[in-house]
């Protein structure tokens, strides 16, 4: 556990990717295979099965700390993390603990069917033998949800260095449904019969947003126009009968979208397609929230697969019949793509429609109608351009719709970071509900000038109702116009709605709090 805590401290005390990768590399070079396997599992969101409920864990922590439960709960509210709150309130350790990570986990597993009294004795004894960081990690083993700023990509990079293997091979090896109980470190990472070239994706080409007048792009005849869909950018690879789906973050997302494995039964092979993964609900395009509910799971339930089936809207072809065709002009790649989609002939793959408009002004009108078909705007692609690497100007432009806006009242303010540490820059906003009360619905920052931030900071300081560490509740007086890209229902928010990309558009000095929008105005946008 000490070794693991040391790794955690190193990862948690730097924001630099290179130092994180070094720390991971050093850890994997020296850890036992059992411990290493568990660390990989924990950092890939595979946690041990829960042995103790969090409710009872809070009671034990409050009891051992000699504080009332309400004070524990308030502290939890401020710290925001249960495992951390427990680690912080407990009295200092009495003894030390030399057990390894994997031993601590198997000890925890052994408690699964024990009575609460036995569990309590074991957990309290362990707490009293661990320092604050070790306690935090031990609590995380129980409560789950390891977020230590280590992405799968970083994990793969550290492992690749420690094992002297390629990053894509490691990423590929780590995919799938394994757990530390079903696989050994040896089998997972070191077995010989592994070939990763099949799964390897190409770097994505990323578009810039149109700034200024779109007509400056020249003749419309030189451009191919498509809708911009609000999904997840993905690369769909089928090589030698195997299918791989990669996200733009270069994570293998086969497990999140198992339906694409059916493509092995369809015609067409040795191709790499670029497109937008979307989900459907009741025959229509699902919301972005629906899509997110398919992500980050090691297994998608059969119910969800049926309720929210996925498909990919494809718009580019990077490899055709085993050949890299990225240097062919956009228009030629498109012809091959159309031929391929016809050949595959599956509902899983839909061709992105090419929009033919007579003029830029016709196109502007078409763009205005994009939201009605759940698109975010348009994409403009130069017909003679190759498929490039990374974000480059010239070939692709995104031309998004103007966002939704709403006027809202600021209720909480929090200090910013970076160069804005001495200003209140992060605000929580509310609108009026039917009972005439303000309900919070979004947190947003950015969008104001430094001068405006200074002015709002003055207001916050002079009108604080209560301070909670870096957060203050303020008199409901200031009104801001909030822009956002999408809206959906949410049971997790008090207001019952969740916004996508909310941000401050401008300060409405001309409006009083009473003139802010109402919750029903937001609900109306739910359609």
């Amino acid at each position, binding site marked *: 556990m000490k070794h693991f805590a040391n790794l955690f401290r190193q990862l*948690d*005390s730097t924001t630099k990717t290179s130092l994180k990768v070094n720390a991971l590399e050093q850890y994997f070079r020296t850890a036992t295979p059992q411990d290493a396997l568990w660390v990989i599992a924990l950092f890939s969101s595979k946690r041990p099965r829960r042995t103790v409920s969090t409710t009872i864990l809070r009671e034990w922590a409050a009891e051992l700390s000699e*504080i*009332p439960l309400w004070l524990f709960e308030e*502290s939890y509210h401020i710290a925001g993390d249960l495992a951390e709150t427990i680690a*912080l309130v407990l009295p200092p350790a009495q003894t030390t603990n030399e057990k390894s990570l994997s031993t601590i986990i198997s000890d925890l597993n052994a408690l699964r069917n024990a009575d609460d009294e036995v569990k309590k004795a074991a957990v309290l004894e362990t707490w009293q033998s661990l320092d604050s960081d070790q306690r935090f990690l031990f609590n995380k083993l129980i409560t789950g949800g390891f977020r230590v700023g280590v992405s799968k990509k970083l994990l793969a990079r550290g492992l690749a260095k420690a094992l002297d293997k390629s990053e894509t091979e490691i990423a590929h090896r780590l995919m799938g449904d394994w757990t530390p109980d079903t696989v050994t470190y040896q089998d997972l990472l070191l077995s010989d019969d592994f070939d990763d070239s099949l799964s390897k994706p190409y770097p994505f080409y990323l578009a810039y947003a149109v700034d200024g007048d779109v007509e400056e792009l020249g003749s419309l005849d030189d451009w191919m126009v498509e809708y911009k869909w609000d999904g997840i950018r993905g690369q769909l690879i089928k090589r030698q009968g195997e299918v791989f789906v990669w996200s733009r973050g270069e994570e293998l997302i086969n497990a999140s979208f198992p339906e694409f494995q059916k493509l092995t039964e369809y015609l067409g092979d040795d191709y790499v397609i670029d497109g937008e993964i979307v989900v459907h609900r009741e025959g229509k395009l699902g919301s972005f929230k629906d899509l997110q509910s398919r992500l980050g799971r090691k297994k998608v339930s059969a119910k969800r697969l049926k309720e929210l089936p996925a498909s990919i809207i494809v718009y580019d072809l990077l490899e055709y019949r085993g050949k890299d065709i990225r240097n062919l002009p956009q228009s030629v790649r498109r012809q091959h793509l159309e031929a391929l989609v016809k050949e595959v002939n599956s509902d899983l793959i839909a061709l992105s429609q090419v929009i033919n408009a007579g003029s830029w002004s016709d196109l502007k009108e078409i763009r205005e109608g994009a939201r009605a078909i759940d698109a975010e705007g348009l994409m403009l692609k130069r017909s003679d351009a190759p498929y490039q690497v990374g974000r480059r100007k010239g070939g692709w432009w995104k031309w998004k719709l103007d966002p939704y806006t709403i006027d809202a009242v600021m209720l909480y303010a929090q*200090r910013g*970071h970076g*160069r804005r540490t001495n200003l209140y820059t992060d605000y929580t906003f509310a609108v009026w509900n039917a009972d005439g009360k303000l309900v919070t619905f979004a947190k947003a920052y950015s969008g104001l000038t430094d001068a405006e931030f200074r002015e709002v900071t003055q207001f916050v300081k002079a009108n604080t109702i*209560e301070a909670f560490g870096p957060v203050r509740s303020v008199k409901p007086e200031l009104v801001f116009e909030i822009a956002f890209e999408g809206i959906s229902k949410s049971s997790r928010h008090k207001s019952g709605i969740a916004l996508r990309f909310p941000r401050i558009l401008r300060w409405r000095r001309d409006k009083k709090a009473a003139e802010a929008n109402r919750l029903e105005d937001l609900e109306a946008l739910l359609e």
Partner: protein
Amino acid sequence: MSQTTSDLLQFDTKGIYCRQADVYIDPWRSVDKAIITHGHSDHARSGSKSYICSKQSVPILRHRLGSQINVRGVKYGETFSVNGVTFSLHPAGHIIGSAQVRVEYKGEIWVASGDYKTQDDGISTAFTPVKCHGFITESTFGLPIYNWKPLADTIQDINEWWSQCKDDNRPAIITAYSLGKAQSLLHNIDRSIGPIYGHGAINKMNTVLIEAGLFDVQTLDVDLEKKDYGGCLIVTPGSGLNSKWADNFKSASTASASGWMALRGARRRRSVDRGFVLSDHADWKGLNSAIKATGASKVIVTHGYQELFSKWLNTQGYEALTQKTQYEGEVLEAVN
């Protein structure tokens, strides 16, 4: 907030007021006579006609409020009388010169403690509990999640971080208030590791304190021509880190020293590499032990987690209530 606990000290729109003496403690508006607990800007404000503070605070007040101010310094423990009310100042351990104000009239004793910490940092005269009937306490870190490690352990962590930077030939930049945190850090850190540079604001403050005989570590001026600060420690207020000045120290490892760094979320939101839990305010245990040691039955809780901390004190048998003030407690990365 509703009832009045004391006729002796009241909270009004200008500060903590003793009507009998016609004196304010740490007023946030101009008054005739002000007693100042310590030199931080939320407690010592300009514009009052006369000031009384600890002898050690006098040079600090003159530096910050102007040399022309009418100020009188008193020794810790020395009593003085204003309109029949007896006052004395007692060490609060917060920063150099910080004091608790003891107020006694007709046998009733109140103590306004300003900001305080119970750990002895070696340069801010150590906190001494003062027996009283009523105690006014801050609550900046008044939740059980805030428990500081022994000061020596945190200093050891900082020494190790600096040594590591030295091994890697990188500058080590740490943020600290120019008054208070900077001195407790400089006094305790292992100065044999390497040269220590200070931001202008910190060097100026140090000079004031050194000339007054209150401090003995001078930090070097940053020379903009010098290119290599590898292995050096640079102490700056938070604002310095965000300014062009910080461009002199490319490749530096950055750190923040603050009680707020106890929370992982706060550490992660900072754009610094390391967060060290170092505060000039009392932690949870410190607040509780300090209050207990006064023997007070009435407690007024000001700036911080006032509602929660006073609710807790009520369960512990105190008659506690909250008062709103304009004191700020420990502000993360504020400009000093």
